[in-house]
């Protein structure tokens, strides 16, 4: 019986920029339906890992495959939810157009064929994230939370087997953080989609996370949240005394103020696009 390909398979991987090693010796397998959180301070290589999986960076060493294929441009089985960012208010684009681009925006041509079927698919995707009431508004006038809901629809309309999320909750209020992470989790439950979720803050998604990959200064730990997010493990990773405090179902990491400083998200996965 042939083994179906895993959403993510990384073997003995290393990523270096010049003499700087972001991480090395990384082995990682993500199973269908698994929710993996990727945590770590800025510059630890979280986003670079995501870029490797998207095919935007190549590994310095090792092997990687994404849903059975080398990470490549435009793998239909991979969905991507980026960080929220401001959109121009005068942009002639409605929410439905944004979602539709996730379906066939990478195809050549103007896309007049099958326009009816396309419209139905877009409407279904919009409904699945509960965005019907503002889906026909200009995207520039939407709030960050509304925009991110449409982003989820945009990523899910292609029915991905792997969902790559790059800080999708950053700059959202608590309610929308909850709504957006619930939507991502719902897809995982319904379609066994694997989720790789890069974030600087685990608490909004803690109840969904199966495993954590924690990256610090070229070191990393992989395991269940309790196995990684504890004082002993993080102290060892950071090489400094770290206190992990659990309060009311949340995890707080203390003693790393200088090292963590994670209130701000400094990177953009697309910064080299322009």
């Amino acid at each position, binding site marked *: 019986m042939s083994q179906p390909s895993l959403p993510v398979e990384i073997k003995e991987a290393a990523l270096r920029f010049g003499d700087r090693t972001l991480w090395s010796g990384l082995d990682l397998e993500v199973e269908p339906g698994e929710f993996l959180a990727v945590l770590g301070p800025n510059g630890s290589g979280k986003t670079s890992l995501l870029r490797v999986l*998207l095919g*935007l960076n190549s590994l310095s060493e090792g092997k990687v495959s994404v849903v059975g294929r080398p990470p*490549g*441009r*435009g*793998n239909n089985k*991979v969905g*991507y939810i*980026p960080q929220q960012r401001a*959109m*121009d208010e*005068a*942009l*002639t*684009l*409605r929410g439905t*157009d*944004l979602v539709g*681009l*996730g379906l*066939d*925006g*990478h*195809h*050549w*041509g*103007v*896309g007049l064929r099958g326009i009816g079927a396309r419209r139905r698919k877009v409407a279904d995707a919009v409904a699945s994230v509960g965005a019907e*009431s*503002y*889906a*026909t*508004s*200009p*995207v520039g006038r939407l709030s960050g939370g509304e925009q991110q809901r449409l982003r989820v629809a*945009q990523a899910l309309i292609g029915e991905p087997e792997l969902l*790559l999320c790059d800080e999708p909750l950053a700059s959202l209020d608590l309610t929308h953080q909850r709504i957006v992470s619930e939507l991502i989790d719902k897809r995982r439950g319904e379609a066994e989609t694997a989720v790789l979720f890069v974030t600087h803050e685990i608490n909004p998604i803690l109840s969904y996370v199966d495993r954590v990959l924690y990256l610090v200064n070229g070191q990393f730990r992989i395991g269940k949240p309790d196995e990684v997010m504890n004082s002993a493990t993080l102290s060892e990773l950071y090489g400094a005394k770290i206190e992990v405090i659990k309060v009311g179902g949340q995890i707080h990491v203390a003693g790393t103020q200088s090292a963590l400083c994670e209130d701000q998200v400094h990177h*953009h*996965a*697309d910064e080299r*696009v*322009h």
Partner: protein
Amino acid sequence: MDKLFDFELTAKLLGIDFVQTALLAAAVLGLVAGVLGPLIVMRRMSFAVHGTAELAFTGAAAALLIGIGVSYGALAGAVIAALLLGLLGGRESDRDSVIGVILSFGLGLGVLLLWYYPGRASNKFGILVGQIVAVDSTDVTVLVVSSVVVLAVLALIYRPLLFATVDPAVATARGVPVRMLSPLFAVLVGIATALGVQIVGALLVVALMVTPAAAAARVTASPWKATVLAVVFAEVAALGGIVLSLAPGAPVSFFVTAISFLIYLVCRSIAYFRGRTRRDPVSEPAALPSPAAPGR
């Protein structure tokens, strides 16, 4: 100006060959400008259009001097400009200043070339402010062929280009060649700009390439409707401008830019009043912008 409403004279002039050639050229240009416009506006390329037009002027001046068709010169200048802007202005932070640098040098060079040109002064002036009645049949052939090429290439790249324009990060992740599309689109804009230079001139080509689309963006958020409206607006401005200019014999470019500007003002007012009613608590929060009546 009192001849403006001399319909008899206008009708008589409409029967003349070169006027009909001019109208055909304007109609083709309006179509191309209207189709490209919304993408130009979304990509914030208004200033790039202006810069490209200045280099089309330089090319046209060079062509005038060495005695080849002005349209070929304008085309060469605009395409070189588009490629230069694409190469030097890759980063968004650089783009603005790079355009300023290139367009001023190009304009200066054009002035020198015109100074060398011994011919009639009106030819020189024509490149700057347009001289559509001087468009001859060779020019029309160049215009039509170039337009067909531009529209065909745009049809092929339309969806990925829209994706790359509004959402570069996700587009890249989905395999859209974002970096290749930018210079390609710049060349398409360059070709269209060069065509526009002959009708409204290098200084005013923005009135056809940008203003109609900017007006359309005020009244609709649908990319398709915006394109259709921009074409309608550009056609009204280009054709209307020529027809109105006939009887008084006044410069075409004034009428084209004036109509274009008027349409823009109307669309802004529509958006303003719609915005006021939208804030009204009685109306639906996500009311769809209804299709706007094309401006007159």
